[in-house]
């Protein structure tokens, strides 16, 4: 990503904290709090104390001035009290040269990390051309200004929860027709990607899909089965891949609300959408999000099944367990079974043969319960418990049954 083009005038405007009796600018946004009472003063001693994360066993300093993790501050005696980060100055773009639409997902009514990245991408394109970022999303209680939106086109809040791709697309098409944005950005998520293609097709334009790298002058993405990189100047319709753009830091924008355009209420062709109840054990292992896995250390298969049900986890097992017929073959995790990519993998009594570890290569978090401290699975685990799996399972089952209030 190339450096953002600087606009000294805008930056200066953004830093104005006081105009009377004389104009004052903030030089360091983080120092705003300290300067709120008057002229900012540097206190090297205090700054050093602020930056001290820990003193023992060795000194660690953080000069970025960003983090004040509560957990860290508790565990770091000797740390100076940091000033709470203050609200950044409000930035108003009164007459934008153009508009950049960011069509946010807001899955289940809450802004996702991907949505934040999308706003950052829109911000980047907008700042390059003195444009304004317009968030188009189902209405909600979000603080759009702090997210980097200059304008907001609220869509009915109910659309966040229900499946209404056709109505969303129609509303966006109408908004595009009315405001003619320079760019329309979508998240390349299942729903956002679908919306992007619907809107682009309806507008008779092409979508540059799944942007992996973005600058004001160039967008690039993978194509050709992942082997080639296609790049061009940002096209009108773009969808941004997850984690391609860093979300914005602390900003404050106006978030002026625009009236959504009227759309003709066509009867949607996709009707009666409803979530199907999903049996975790019916989910393919490759798709599963949370896996409860058993190895040689598990002998009570009734408790194991109950635990899977209580935790809402997909059951799986090591090769030995599947060989022994305790679980069907399609539940085998490992190089010779299924390679899983769950967010969480809870392993009971699995020592961690190399083939099994290959199978959990894509897992984000591993919790392992095993009697052997030196088992490979314990080394791989984010939370490792050296205990008899057979004893822990019923205790966890009890706790899950009580909803954690044991």
């Amino acid at each position, binding site marked *: 990503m190339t450096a953002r083009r600087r606009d000294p005038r805008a930056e200066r405007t953004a830093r104005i904290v006081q105009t009377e009796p004389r104009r004052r600018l903030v030089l360091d946004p983080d120092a705003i709090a300290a300067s709120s009472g008057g002229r900012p003063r540097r206190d090297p001693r205090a700054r050093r104390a602020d930056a001290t994360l820990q003193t023992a066993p060795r000194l660690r300093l953080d000069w970025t001035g960003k983090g*004040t993790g509560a957990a860290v501050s508790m565990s770091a005696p000797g740390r100076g009290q940091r000033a709470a980060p203050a609200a950044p100055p409000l930035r108003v773009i009164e007459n934008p040269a153009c508009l950049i639409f960011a069509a946010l997902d807001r899955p289940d009514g809450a802004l996702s990390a991907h949505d934040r990245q999308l706003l950052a991408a829109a911000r980047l394109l907008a700042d390059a051309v003195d444009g304004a970022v317009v968030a188009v999303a189902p209405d909600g209680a979000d603080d759009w200004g702090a997210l980097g939106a200059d304008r907001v086109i609220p869509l009915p809040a109910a659309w966040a929860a229900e499946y209404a791709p056709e109505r969303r697309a129609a509303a966006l098409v109408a908004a595009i027709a009315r405001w003619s944005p320079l760019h329309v950005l979508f998240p390349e998520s299942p729903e956002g990607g679908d919306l992007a293609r619907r809107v682009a097709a309806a507008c*008779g334009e092409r979508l540059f899909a799944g942007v992996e790298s973005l600058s004001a002058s160039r967008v690039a993405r993978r194509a050709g*089965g992942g082997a080639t990189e296609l790049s061009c100047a940002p096209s009108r319709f773009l969808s941004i891949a997850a984690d391609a753009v860093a979300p914005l830091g602390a900003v404050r924008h106006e978030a002026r609300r625009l009236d959504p355009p009227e759309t003709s209420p066509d009867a949607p062709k996709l009707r009666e959408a409803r979530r199907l109840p999903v049996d975790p054990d019916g989910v393919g292992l490759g798709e599963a999000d949370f896996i409860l896995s058993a190895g040689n250390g598990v002998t009570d298969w009734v408790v194991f099944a109950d635990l899977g049900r209580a*935790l809402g986890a997909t059951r799986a097992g090591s090769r030995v367990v599947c060989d022994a017929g305790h679980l069907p073959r399609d539940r085998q995790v490992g190089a010779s079974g299924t390679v899983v990519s769950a967010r*969480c993998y809870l392993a009971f009594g699995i020592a961690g043969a190399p083939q099994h570890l290959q199978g959990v290569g894509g897992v984000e978090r591993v919790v392992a319960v095993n009697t052997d401290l030196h088992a490979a699975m314990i080394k791989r685990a984010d939370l490792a418990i050296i205990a008899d799996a057979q004893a822990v399972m019923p205790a966890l089952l009890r706790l*899950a049954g009580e909803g954690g209030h044991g």
Partner: protein
Amino acid sequence: MVDVAILVSVGRHPASGQARRAPSDARALELAFGLPPGRRDALHAGDPTNPALRDYLGMGLERLTVLAMAEGRDPTDALAARLRGLSPGIILTGNQAEGGEDSGMLPYVVAQALGLAIVPDVVAIALDAEGRTAEVVQALARGQRRALRVELPFVATVHPAAPAARPSAFGPARRGRIEVVPVDAPPDAFLTACAARPWRDRPKRLSVGAAGGGTGGALERLRAATEAKAGQGRVLVEPSPDEAARAIWDYLQEQGMQPR
């Protein structure tokens, strides 16, 4: 009884780069085999001599129609025209092509051109008795499923979680017919404007400790960078079963796997 058209593309194996049947298009064909028998028309736009097309015939198709066009042409008009002539009840295709532009736009453009509804990420289709509407199941993230009803005709893109495609067999692949229909397709101006070069992996952006996360200190970023996938997390040695259960439960809650 329903007439189905299946749009198939040529895939590209991610490791070797060799041409093959595109996995999600093959699943679309498999889904078509599972529908009550009517006419099945498989269509491909591109080079009719590509041997990977025989992989679809090997699944039991007798005939594959190829709208023959050179590389870099825009196939949408030709496909839409052909489909208009066939007027199938359901148009199926994979939701991810591999090996071409891979933008996933084609089914949408086709649906738009024909004025049809489009249902993405389908894993199952059940027709009602009269064959006028279909109950469609979509795959969502994390193994979730959504059902909805749609009137025929419609376009559906098939999700990788759909039932696995049957293997392609050599005998039927050799016997199947490839029907070549030369078409005149305009050059794809949008793609021509793009520069292409071999993909090079970029470092993965760390989500923890990035600016704006608010709570990320240096220690946290350091931890995030060094821990990444190596594990080396917390170890509890010989706790009582209840302590162990509590620790697991708290961790699961922390990770959002259990309601707080």
